[in-house]
């Protein structure tokens, strides 16, 4: 690579980094600034850093509890989505019957239903089942909403897996379930990582359904907890931003530990 090309690439990368980091910097200046501090949002309050906003986010917004609730919902919903989607995708990919094509088409069609259009019947159902304001009451609808895309991704991926692998396993005496468990599932790692990223990000950031289903302060998830600082008669942006920063921490930690898998997953998908 020529020298000036290197410089150009470096500049582009630095610009990209800057664009990503500026909102984070603005969040820091806002979170550590007094609400009555009307100085520029670009100025970091070195002389008068306040922890009040973080304290308000935790004590009044219940952000720590909300982060825990979001983590519980995200982990379980993502796990269930991956498990159910992989199991559902296998027969859809391998047995191309007319019925299975119809099922696949129907599953895809479900993706077009806006979640809020079924809100009232869904709310009534959850109320009848006693699931309002419970983890299960939120996890089950979210899994249902995420399954179609996950099934689609798994189905497409499984179709690219050579059938000869399964036939070889059968010849070696493996049952269908053993073949699935020992041969097929391990091959699904790249697409599983993709599904985990898409599902987890959606569930972690989900606001619309959570705000209707998880109404008590103890059960509220992260996004509605932060939104509780914005009202018709004024907002506490500083506390809301402080809450957002707290909410980012688990994602950052998860990404630091799992980035190897994420990168591999994305690259493996791209190679195919």
């Amino acid at each position: 690579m020529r020298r000036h090309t290197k410089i150009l690439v470096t500049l582009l990368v630095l610009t990209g980094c800057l664009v990503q980091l500026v909102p984070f910097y603005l969040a820091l200046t806002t979170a550590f600034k007094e609400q009555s501090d009307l100085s520029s949002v670009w100025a970091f309050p070195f002389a008068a850093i306040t922890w009040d906003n973080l304290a308000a986010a935790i004590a009044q917004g219940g952000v720590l509890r909300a982060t825990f609730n979001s983590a519980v919902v995200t982990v379980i919903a993502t796990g269930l989505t991956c498990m159910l989607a992989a199991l559902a995708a296998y027969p859809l990919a391998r047995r191309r019957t007319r019925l299975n094509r119809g099922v696949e088409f129907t599953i895809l069609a479900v993706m077009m239903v806006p979640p809020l259009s079924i809100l009232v019947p869904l709310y009534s159902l959850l109320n009848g089942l006693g699931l309002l304001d419970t983890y299960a009451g939120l996890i089950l609808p979210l899994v249902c909403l995420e399954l179609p895309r996950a099934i689609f991704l798994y189905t497409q991926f499984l179709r690219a897996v050579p059938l000869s692998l399964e036939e070889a396993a059968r010849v070696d005496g493996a049952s269908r379930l053993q073949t699935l468990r020992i041969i097929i599932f391990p091959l699904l790692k790249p697409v599983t990582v993709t599904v985990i990223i898409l599902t987890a990000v959606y569930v972690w950031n989900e606001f619309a359904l959570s705000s209707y289903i998880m109404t008590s302060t103890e059960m509220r998830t992260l996004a509605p907890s932060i939104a509780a600082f914005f009202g018709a008669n004024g907002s506490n942006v500083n506390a809301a931003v402080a809450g957002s920063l707290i909410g980012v921490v688990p994602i950052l930690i998860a990404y630091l530990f799992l980035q190897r898998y994420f990168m591999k997953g994305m690259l493996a998908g791209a190679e195919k």
Partner: protein
Amino acid sequence: MTHTALRAGLVATTAAALLLTGCSAPGSGQQNLTFSLYMTADSPARAVYEKLIADFTHETGVAVDMTYDTTNYENNIKVKMAAGNLPDVFATHGWSVLRYSEFLQPLDDQAWTSGVNTALNTSMRDDQGHLYALPVEYTVAGIAVNQDVVEKAGVDATAINTWDDFNTALTKVAATGVTPITASGKSSSAGNMADFIASNAFTDAQRQSFLGGTFDTAAWSERVLSHVQDWRTAGFFNADYVSASLDDMASQLAQGQAAFALVPASSILATTLKLNPSANIGFIPIPSDQAERFLVGGEGIHSFGVSKSSKNKEAALKFVAFLAEPDNAAAIASALGSYSGLTNVKVDLGLLQSSYDAWVTPAQLPTKPFFDRVYLPNGIWSTMIATTDSVITGQASPDQASEQMKLQYDTLFRQAR
């Protein structure tokens, strides 16, 4: 990822899902009273409510589960209403009669109703005179003003009677280099502006026309939106209107960068004082070309009704009566910085006290109901914001915006019928 790890993951996920399916919110299974509020997480009123709830539980043995919501509150209550699962006691936020009366227990037989301010009769009692909510908060709205800014421009804000007076004041303020009117495209301030003007803009015949299903496009354009258009043409609005939020409006008033804001005082003045505790702010009556100047007001956000279908109705009525006790209602209203809807409740309103003393307490000025709540069909609020906004930003003329209002009015009116 090994097979063992995969298996362990699957087992753990399934086990956790099964386990959590059985989990429920704390306190479910008991007959706790449910109480829903329209309030932010950091509202000063929250601590007051929590204390009052603890006192009520101590006194009666009835536990109360308080939940609060903000911008999503209205939609949340609509969903609960549709699902037949309304909270036992909930904030009616200005809609106890027009939207919720069918679902609320009439409260006329409650002892505290004798203390309800009669000025609220128009907005809080139905045709039969039934009252459906406890008005802990009485929203009285005028034009928010920074007194220092207008005095510096040589304007006596208390002497503004007509829209011509107001326009002259705006011109004088503009000449000092300060923004005459602050408004925000990211909040409902455009709707508030149209609502303020419309509340006393029409003749009786025109009002009856709006009420009866005929949207008078020419009157709306000429008597409401033409004012907005004139202010836009004269450059009286803040330059950052499109990107400004309600907090930005408060900030501009607090820093003396703007003179007036046409939004309810309760929406903006508390934030303004938080940003600048020594800001010389208050509110003035709304000018008019029809008879005399006026205030706009009615049922506040913190008004509480009891669900007709509540299984804990007796306890719910007791709780509302407990909130209506003068000391308790005063504690809530003080925390909110709002005027109380109960005449036996005295509230210290701090720096805003002088405005309330000048315009509200003497009860000499007429208080008109919010125009949209009484004369326009339910659901038109967002269109009112969007159409007024389109005039402020120059995307539509008053006539075009009025036509748009009429379209939505006709649709909603037909749906309501």
